[in-house]
């Protein structure tokens, strides 16, 4: 029976923690004019100018080698920067995906030419990426993708469709998981990853309006798009292994625990200003605080494993499930509290933030792998399947 290794309490090293003061002061000033309901969108918000400024300060690609424009620092340095972005509610969506997973993925699997070409602009905050995984008939069942790249004399011909692609309408590039041999029935075999230039002829991007009235994701159509030879990233047929490694980056970060923090902090401001020390208020504040403190310690402990070169895939799935559950409970519990109060006493800005979180919260346990998929991974880690 396999088992999970217990997490060990870890501390962020002092040389990385020192980054916090400067990053925090910069972001605090950057978001000063933004209302809480807007800051609540954090990495769903896009501000290209902010991304360029952060790039200029060396805060994007901080873990990547200086030879490609990166900071050459540890995963902890990135943890500190990302945590500050989330807790100030900075709109960092423009560079978020490239910084989190595309650039590390190119560094790990790309050719020298690909690294030289793609990574420096990412680090400058000038190049945005999106992730081409889901398709209309491949949601949680990712291995069933049907979008296909076929070899030609000059490279590859791409045809098919992707969907739910975050920020696709804002990006220059997508890293797509597609089939290069066999059929959907071959599952994990015959999949490869490509870097697709979204300005090529034959690419069509149609934004999807979501339930909050915004268009954060798109559907994408590829009609015989001619890709150059250099578009293949990593080895042909190794796409599944590569994408699995990518998901470990995607699941282990603080964005899986702090998505509702702007609302919680706004609620705390409200009850502190009231001087409300009723026991029901204390319990609610303490419930969220004690869960969050535990989850943050778990997230730092996972970061420590990444820093040691480990890939805690199952543990990351487990923490993501717990973290997104709290993220979703925060707007539910706080709404329960606020709507037990005198209707006139709650500031409209707080209610506006609550509405924003209530609308977007269902996505917390969808993006990056659904709750049920994650629990299946944990069950496998426990030897049940």
């Amino acid at each position, binding site marked *: *029976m396999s088992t*999970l290794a*217990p*997490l*060990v*309490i*870890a*501390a962020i090293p002092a040389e990385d923690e020192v980054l916090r003061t400067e990053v925090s002061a910069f972001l605090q000033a950057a978001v000063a004019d933004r209302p809480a309901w807007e800051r609540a969108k954090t990495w769903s918000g896009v501000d290209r100018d902010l991304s360029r400024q952060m790039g200029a300060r060396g805060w994007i690609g901080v873990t990547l080698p200086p030879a490609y424009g990166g900071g050459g620092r540890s995963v902890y340095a990135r943890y500190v920067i990302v*945590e500050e972005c989330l*807790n100030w509610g900075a709109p960092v969506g423009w560079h978020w995906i490239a910084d989190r997973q595309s650039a590390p993925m190119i560094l790990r699997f790309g050719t020298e030419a690909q690294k030289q070409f793609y990574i420096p602009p990412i680090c400058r905050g000038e190049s945005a990426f999106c992730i081409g995984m889901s398709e209309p008939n491949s949601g949680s069942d990712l291995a069933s993708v049907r979008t296909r790249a076929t070899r030609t004399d000059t490279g590859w011909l791409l045809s098919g469709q992707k969907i739910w692609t975050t920020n696709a309408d804002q990006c220059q590039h997508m890293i797509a998981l597609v089939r290069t041999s066999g059929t959907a029935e071959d599952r994990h075999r015959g999949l490869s990853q490509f870097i697709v230039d979204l300005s090529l002829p034959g690419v069509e991007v149609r934004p999807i309006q979501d339930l909050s009235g915004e268009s954060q994701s798109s559907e994408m159509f590829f009609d015989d798009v001619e890709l150059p030879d250099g578009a293949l990233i990593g080895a042909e047929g190794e796409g599944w292994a590569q994408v699995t490694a990518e998901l470990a980056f995607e699941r282990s970060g603080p964005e899986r625990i*702090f998505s509702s*923090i702007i609302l*919680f*902090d706004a609620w*705390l*401001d409200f*009850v*502190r200003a009231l001087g*409300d*020390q009723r*026991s029901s*208020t*204390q*319990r*609610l*504040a*303490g*419930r969220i*605080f*004690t*869960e*969050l*403190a*535990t*989850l*943050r*310690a*778990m997230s730092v*402990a996972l970061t420590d494993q990444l820093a040691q070169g480990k890939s805690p895939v199952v*543990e990351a799935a*487990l*923490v993501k*499930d*717990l973290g997104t559950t709290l993220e979703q409970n925060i707007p539910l519990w706080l709404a329960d509290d606020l709507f037990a109060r005198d209707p006139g006493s709650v500031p409209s800005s707080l209610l506006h933030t609550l509405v924003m979180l209530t609308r977007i919260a269902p996505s917390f346990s969808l993006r990056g792998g659904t709750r*049920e998929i*994650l*629990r*299946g991974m*944990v*069950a496998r880690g*426990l*030897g*049940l*399947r």
Partner: protein
Amino acid sequence: MEDLFLSTFSRLMQAHASPEVVRRALQAGEADALAAQLEESGFGNLLLPEDHGGAGLSLAQIYPLLALLGAHACPVPLAETLVARAALQAAGLAQPAGWLTLAEGVLAEGQVAVHGLPYGRLAGTALVAVDGVLRPLALADASARAPHLYGLDQAVRWPAACWRAAPVAGEAVDASMWLACLAAARLAGTMATVLDLSREHVTQRVQFGRPLARFQAIQQLISQQAEQMYAAQMAAMIGCQTRSWQPEAARVAIAKATTSAAAAQVAAVGHAVHGAMGFTEEHDLQLFTRLLHRDRWLAGAESRWQEVAGGWLLSSGQPARTLDVIRSVMADTHS
């Protein structure tokens, strides 16, 4: 050195704290053989300074041992004894023979009353805190001892004269905070055992022609149980984060709130997947789920500690961002 003491302790528990020993202790209030082994081993002195016959360890260093006590549902109050001896030594008082335990007491009507004295049935001395003043009271001097909610616990009263005659072992002591820290660590270990029993059962029990573990509904339940246990382990470690034998209040609030809430869920899933078999006296599951509920209640369940943490979070003077409050609570933690 820590690994060595831990593996020695683990072997001792394996050999002498079997479910049969626990079952008998809960029924008959007797665990003499295990108690003798533990006394002889000297593990009760780990928190004492080295020049007082101890090992000079901190709570953080002995966390794995505290969790193992829960993993075996150890009926002897070793955790409480460890802290009580450290408190007595710090106060310059003599160490009484026998096992020690801790509690909050109330002084009224000529008596000191402790409503629930953990392991009172096996302890020789209780360190009782009344309004923050801590004094050792011999169980032999008690005027009344009655069964309490868990087989080894008791409701105990002493004549006020005993209390006045006892030396002071500490002032401004929050004994419930000490107990909460120890119970949280024990809970993490007990949860690990209930998870192990549950995994073992669902992989072996066959229904509809396949092991229960093959059913997605069961997999989802056990995954949630594992997640709760995993969070509880981290929280319990946070509670024990101190370089001394004295826990810190904010960290204990995190630990006890999280472990108590998790305990209820872990116990519920354990019984759900064991079916009627786990509902019998004969099955070991009940030894551990009973302890889960007892330690959930001990020194306050989740709401009490959420209230403590929340009251502190809402007080003025805290940083505006929750992240910064968490960072200040976790400052100077280590593995």
